[in-house]
């Protein structure tokens, strides 16, 4: 649908990822200098000029599988390591958080304000590093340039495209359940009270006009909710009060990140079965992914000593347990590059992926490229 959705999806998901990682780094008492390096490395990679250039090109949204691959890479853009179970959980949290924000935006264009909230927080993470700060500032400019001229209808198309991407995801997130913004069946609470969006009147009035335009009658009806007037407009510029809280950091050390795997509704399982069908990535998608990944320059760790593992669960045992007990239909699936018929795109992607090989990766069997790399990608 909309060909301008990917930058918003990427920046908002990336922002959520940074909130979560920041919380976990502090919860695990990772030394401040290492934690800062992780955050800086990831943000530098996220806002890499070449990568963003590809991202901002008009294109259809990627599949969930393809986007997950991009975030896998991003999460490993530094000395931090994440096991499969933690990576799964991280991605669950990121996607459910952004789904929530998209659903609750009062107006479609408020998604841009949500994006600015994430950008503001990212800017704060790197405020002491001028080089990265300038990359972030440039991205603000690109966002403003691309999105502020769009009409309401075009924003709604972007929102509809995002909602298709998030369709049928009902993973329960502890923090949402506690705050009562998500029900126990995984669906978000949509309140019928609160401020109406800017530009909308509180429902309740019917006005009848004469042919000459004068008001003849005014009638009231009961709107069944409890609405109040709209809040003031948020800032769509580089700085300013965004007004909406959607997209701001909801985690802190005392509010841990948890998801519940059990009890996910049957219908979501049905749908994800359709998605996870063993089809190879479409050739088009593979090409796009290759171009995008080409821009993701990853730093190789100096030595395996400086690397460390972050766990998104409370204990290692919990993490292992989560991996074993994750329902099949909720696995994000591997991109089976071998199955693709397009040898050229395949080779291109393999080459790029090859550049990402970290020496400390325990799953790498041999150092030669080709089949072993494919096997390693499949093992992701």
């Amino acid at each position, binding site marked *: 649908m909309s060909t301008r959705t990917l930058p918003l999806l990427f920046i908002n998901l990336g922002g959520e990822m940074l909130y979560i990682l920041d919380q976990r780094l502090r919860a695990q008492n990772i030394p401040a200098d290492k934690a800062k390096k992780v955050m800086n490395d990831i943000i530098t990679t996220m806002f890499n000029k070449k990568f963003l250039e590809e991202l901002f090109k008009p294109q259809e949204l990627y599949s969930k599988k393809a986007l997950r691959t991009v975030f896998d890479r991003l999460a490993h853009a530094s000395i931090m390591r994440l096991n499969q179970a933690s990576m799964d959980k991280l991605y669950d949290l990121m996607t459910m958080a952004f789904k929530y924000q998209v*659903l609750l935006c009062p107006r479609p264009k408020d998604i841009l304000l949500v994006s600015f909230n994430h950008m503001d927080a990212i800017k704060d993470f790197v405020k002491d590093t001028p080089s990265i700060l300038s990359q972030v500032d440039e991205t603000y400019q690109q966002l403003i340039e691309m999105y502020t001229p769009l009409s309401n*209808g075009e924003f709604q*198309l972007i929102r509809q495209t995002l909602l298709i991407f998030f369709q049928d995801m009902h993973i329960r997130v502890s923090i949402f359940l506690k705050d009562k913004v998500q029900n126990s069946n995984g*669906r978000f609470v*949509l309140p019928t009270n609160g401020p109406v969006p800017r530009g909308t009147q509180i429902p309740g009035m019917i006005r*009848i006009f004469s042919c000459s*335009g004068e008001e003849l009658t005014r009638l009231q009806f009961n709107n*069944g909710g409890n609405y109040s007037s709209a809040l003031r407009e948020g800032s769509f510029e580089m700085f300013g009060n965004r007004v909406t809280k959607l997209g701001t950091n909801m985690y802190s050390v005392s509010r841990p990140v948890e998801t519940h795997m059990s009890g996910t509704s049957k*219908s979501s399982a049905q749908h994800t079965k359709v998605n996870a069908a063993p089809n190879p990535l479409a050739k088009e998608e593979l090409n796009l992914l290759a171009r995008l990944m080409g821009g993701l320059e990853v730093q190789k760790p100096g030595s395996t000593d400086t690397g460390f593992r972050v766990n998104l669960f409370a204990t290692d045992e919990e993490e292992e347990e989560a991996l074993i007990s994750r329902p099949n239909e909720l696995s994000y699936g591997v991109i089976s590059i071998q199955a693709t018929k397009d040898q050229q795109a395949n080779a291109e992607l393999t080459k790029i992926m090859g550049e990402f090989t970290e020496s400390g990766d325990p799953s790498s069997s041999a150092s030669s490229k080709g089949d072993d790399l494919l096997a390693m990608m499949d093992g992701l």
Partner: protein
Amino acid sequence: MFHKEKSIQLKNSASALYNNLSVLRIAPRRLTYFTVVHANVVNMVSTSWDGLNYSHRQLQSKEPNVATSTSLIMQAAFCALPSRDLLVVSSQKGIQMYESDGSIMVYWHALDTPEAPTAHAVFARGISAVSDNYVCVGVSSGAVLVFDVPSKGSNITLSEVLEEHKEAITDIASECSGSQECLANLVTADDGGNMCVWKSGEEFQLLNKIPGLDMTCSSVKLWKGTVLAGYGTGQIRLYEAVTGILHAEVNAHARWIYSLDIAPFSGLLLSAAEDSFVRVWHLSITPETNSVEIAHLHNECVTDTQICGAKFCDGDGYAFAVTGYDLSEIIRLVACWE
């Protein structure tokens, strides 16, 4: 005044698209068909009036002769013409027309899709039967395609392209088929809230343009010469079609309206929005005296659901059906007045 009946389960959930529910009543066979779009699939359910039999069918948007590509569907709607009923599916790649039970595809029209994606998305959206033998479908460029449909067979042809809108078409509506004579029988609406009023014929005639106020008109209906328009601001406006005179304005919903429907025999109006509410109104229009009355009758809240489709199941408005984003069922409500 309306009570819930047993919901119809769908094979998958409804996508957040405007006017995402279409209903076709087949009286001779005592059946009702429903269609709901999920991404690149059209879910069809056929239900018997006694509530005992349900059958499902899924149509995937795959253009013929193109191996693996799929595309997202923007809308699926039944077009009831005097001689035949069609199911029209509009997607990013083009327009498909099927026999109303979805069994055979009778026509395919490809949109001009560019080699590489452009900043402006390309898709078809907005579907309506017009007069005795036309089906009109809107395009993201603002064009409205007019197809000439013979009383049977697949010799459907593109008869005209109407180019008045500059923004993507959102919805199209018509009234007066068969014996009725109408001055205006077609209205087309776009992303900017602009509307065009037409008279069908071998060459469609533009009768009036109603300017939008930069706010999307997502759903539109035409009844007794009056345009009923639902907007992204949650407002419903009633305009006299040929003159553009504003008759009524309703602050109807707290969020973007996704669907409007009218029961032509009783004047019942249905409006549904992202705010979880479906509202039923009663319209009274006397074209001769130019008088319009609108009264609010009923609210139905579908908890925690952003509604994307709401349609009456019959011309009197005795029953209506509702779909919502992420909901895998069609909710049904039936009137309980005497």
